């Protein structure tokens, strides 16, 4: 039975599942096409991280991987943790997706649940100022943030950051702070005026982590395994919502299919061309209304290939990503204090550094070191590793990492297009070009200086030589190739995220963002997907 009246959605990431769930709740039928790579179940779900090391048959392969791929040896880049082997399915490529890039390190996911199966759960709503170039504002998006929070469970507090992070409905109380984060926050409260005077605010992170049982999932039990995969699903991932969708009879989920392009006729998408992963010939799925939620890069490639099939070979300008900077620090007040391995592992505090405008503002996440592998850190110390290991143990309780996100704007020089090459028509590779704005070096130095100053006022020291400027692409906050505009031409979308190139095509992932404020975008992706589903398909 072919169900051509269905809405066909490509992708099961956060954008896709919240779009689909909204339609399903409204009683509509949805077909979802997905590559849908799956991981294996997490072992010993009740064990804390240290217990895992004792109780697993082969902890080395669990933590480092059979090919030792998660061991970060000197010379393998400046990261502080390797992706855990148990999440490797999240980044497993798809055979028909190829990309070549300049100035950009692209990361894509073809997993059930998308990239956010490996995310760190930061959920930050945009405020009206940040949405200035969006064709809507808080009035439209605020309730949708609340709706997403109702579905996934977001915890946080009303504190100094709330001026930048507007309050929405269904906010759970924050998860219990670890000792180091608690002291940092207390220091901030003591020295609030001195910090506010340099434009720095500190407060609780907004996290997709349950502090209360919710919708059949249990509150975070502080197992300290977040990086290796939360076994209790207290840390939300989109596969939770996908499972909800799968309970609905009106939902058709088609994993194991890679969408390659769609066939156009008279400015309409007629059919989606898909390739079964298991092998065999390509198939066509007839479409009435097509919704792309394959992530900015993959959705852009699908559109580019499809247009090229009609002889329209073009580029899409405006690719954005948040530049990230890692600033490791030592909190002198924490030296010599105990720490507990049984605590939440990712960031629990946020730091905002005001700028004159939203595009100059910086949003940071502060992760204190609770449980983590030591070798990525110890190798950076200027001592022999025997000494470095012991020094790390001495300072462990005092270590933290500030991860700064910088805003980005659409620029004509940052583009995606089809790569010139020998590929057969219809499976061309994506070519990505990214050029940082003029004056990037000076901007980064200025931000790092401000962050150092703020940390100093918090009683923390930033050891010289350890700040790491991540390459573009590393934050995986991709956006901007098909921006929503009130009126615009080809290569744009309507305020309802409908393509201006293809009549029955909508895009509900990051590709439609007209700007990228200095905040992790996924919460907004989900809220916007709800909005489009309600307004355009309601």
């Amino acid at each position, binding site marked *: 039975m072919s169900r051509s009246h269905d809405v066909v959605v490509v992708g099961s990431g956060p954008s896709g599942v919240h779009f689909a769930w909204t339609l399903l709740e409204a009683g509509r039928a949805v077909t979802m096409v997905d590559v849908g790579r799956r991981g294996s179940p997490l072992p010993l779900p009740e064990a804390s991280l240290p217990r895992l090391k004792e109780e697993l048959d082969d902890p080395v392969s669990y933590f*480092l991987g059979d090919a030792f791929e998660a061991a970060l*040896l*000197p010379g393998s880049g400046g990261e502080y943790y390797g992706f855990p082997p148990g999440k490797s399915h999240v980044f497993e490529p798809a055979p028909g997706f190829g990309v070549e890039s300049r100035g950009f390190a692209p990361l894509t996911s073809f997993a059930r649940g998308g990239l956010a199966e490996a995310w760190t759960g930061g959920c930050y709503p945009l405020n009206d100022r940040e949405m200035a170039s969006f064709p809507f504002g808080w009035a439209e998006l605020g309730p949708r943030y609340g709706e997403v929070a109702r579905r996934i469970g977001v915890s946080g507090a009303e504190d100094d950051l709330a001026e930048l992070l507007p309050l929405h409905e269904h906010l759970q109380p924050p998860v219990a702070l670890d000792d180091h984060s608690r002291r940092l926050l207390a220091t901030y409260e003591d020295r609030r005026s001195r910090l506010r005077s340099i434009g720095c605010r500190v407060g609780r992170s907004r996290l997709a982590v349950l502090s209360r049982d919710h919708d059949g999932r249990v509150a975070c039990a502080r197992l300290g395994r977040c990086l290796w995969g939360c076994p209790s699903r207290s840390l939300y991932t989109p596969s939770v919502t996908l499972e909800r969708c799968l309970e609905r009879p009106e939902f058709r989920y088609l994993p194991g299919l890679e969408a390659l392009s769609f066939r156009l006729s008279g400015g309409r998408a007629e059919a989606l061309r898909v390739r079964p*992963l298991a092998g065999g010939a390509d198939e066509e799925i007839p479409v009435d209304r097509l919704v792309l939620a394959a992530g900015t890069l993959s959705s852009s490639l699908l559109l580019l290939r499809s247009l090229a099939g009609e002889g329209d070979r073009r580029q899409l300008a405006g690719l954005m990503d948040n530049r990230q900077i890692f600033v490791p620090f030592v909190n002198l007040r924490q*030296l*010599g*204090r*105990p720490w507990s391995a049984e605590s939440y592992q990712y960031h629990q505090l946020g730091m905002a550094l005001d700028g004159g405008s939203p595009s100059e503002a910086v949003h940071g996440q502060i992760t204190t070191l609770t449980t983590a592998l030591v070798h990525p850190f110890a190798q950076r110390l200027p*001592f*022999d590793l025997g000494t470095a290991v012991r020094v790390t143990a001495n300072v462990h309780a005092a270590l933290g990492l500030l991860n700064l996100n910088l805003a980005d704007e659409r620029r004509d020089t940052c583009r995606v297009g089809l790569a010139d090459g020998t590929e057969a028509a219809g499976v061309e590779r994506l070519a990505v070009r990214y050029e940082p704005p003029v004056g990037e070096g000076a901007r980064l130095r200025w931000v790092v200086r401000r962050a150092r100053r703020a940390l100093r006022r918090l009683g923390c020291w930033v050891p010289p030589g350890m700040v790491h400027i991540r390459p573009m692409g590393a934050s995986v906050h991709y956006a901007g190739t098909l921006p929503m505009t009130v009126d615009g031409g080809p290569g744009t979308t309507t305020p309802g995220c409908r393509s201006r190139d293809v009549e029955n095509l909508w895009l509900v992932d990051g590709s439609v963002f007209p700007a990228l404020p200095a905040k992790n975008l996924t919460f907004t992706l989900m809220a916007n997907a709800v909005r489009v589903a309600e307004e355009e398909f309601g």
Partner: protein
Amino acid sequence: MDRLLLTGASGFVGRRVLAEAARRGVPVTALCRRPPSGGRPVGDVRWLAFDVAGDVSGEAPLGGLLEAPPEDPWVGAFDGVGAVLHLAAATGAAPASEHRRVNEEGTRRLLRAAARAGVERFVFVSTIGVRFPDLRGYPYGRSKAAAEGAVRESGLRWTVVRPTAVFGDGSPIVASLSRLAGLPVLPLLGGAPARLQPVAVDALAATLLDVVGQPETVGGTIEVGGPEIATMEELLRRLRQRLRGRRGPALRLPLGPLTLALGVLERVGVRPPVTAGQLVSFVEDGVLDPEIGRVVGETPLPPADGSADVPAGRARGGDRSRRLRREAGSLSRVLVGSPPGEPVVARYLAAHERLPGLMPSSLFERAQVGAARLHPWPARMADAYAALLARESVLRRKTVLLLAILESSAGHHRSIDRPDARGRLGTVAALGLRGLSALPLLAVGFAIFVPVHLLSTLLSVSGPRRGVDP
């Protein structure tokens, strides 16, 4: 470049062929029934998942959602393919019917599909076991022999490759022999007189890829083995030595009653470490026929104890692992103050097989690593110097690797990632002391390694900076 259709790509040998193909930049279409889901994929690989013998009919595409008839799984499998390397097989303790179905019938189907798709080059991986004089009680060997026949008659540009026993990390043969060798009394089935000539899996993988591209092998049969021959008895004893640290008692068991007993066990569903069918390999020689044999790689046999009478071929492999063990011992004392223990050492050795950049490639790096093997103190001195002036040198990579393994291992992780709460003053004092004790190390380290490093840089030929492990 033409793709290689590799069947059995998820198996023990197949995985290594995949890795080698990625290194060589050969694009691969990989076939097996259950493609691996985890693991970082390397190179250009397209996975196909279906049964080569194909009578477990695949699910209808899209779960029957679209009105397309079930597809022939072979359609599209040969897209862009220039050659087939056929490894997929029922191996080990599979029932006789499955050996026949997969190895014989599966090979026939693959041959037909290749012919239909116009792909001519076909390399079939058989086994040395097809030469055992009596294949009646050996369904695996029988099925492979029949498959060889089908390959020879196919009219394609074929080559048959017969490996000897394949050894290496994850080897099914080594695993089952180890189960025998680990028993309290070593059972020598039929006296275990068979002579073996095992081949290292990586050397085999490379050879298989070589053969695909060697037109002179078309229409021929090649046997592939390693440089050393040992009897099954000797092999079992060496495995036992490695597992239990001593040789211990052995028991010679006559073959006849055993075959019977194992047959009964299998019937009632018990999985013994060897099946009745596999018993032949304890008595029949599995060594190369010199006429058609190729010796490749280093010997994968575990070393015998006492190195006096070690044949030259093996000495190198044995020495290398001994050196790595010594190194792990010394570095572990530096990192956690105690010896590493066998599981950690085993992972350390395994990592040296997999990760690049762990072989010293200059005079300086050899001096570093040599110092580290001597004793924990020189190890720290060498590392103290490297921490400042050679952060990516081999010794640092090795030490960080061992640290990563130790901190992921039961027991050891506690001495690395433990709360060390001694108050602020106590901590500052401890840090001060560590700094003081690190200074003389650094001074001596500099005194030794500055000249060595300089000399090494002056002498360095323009070779690659970092060797890649074999």
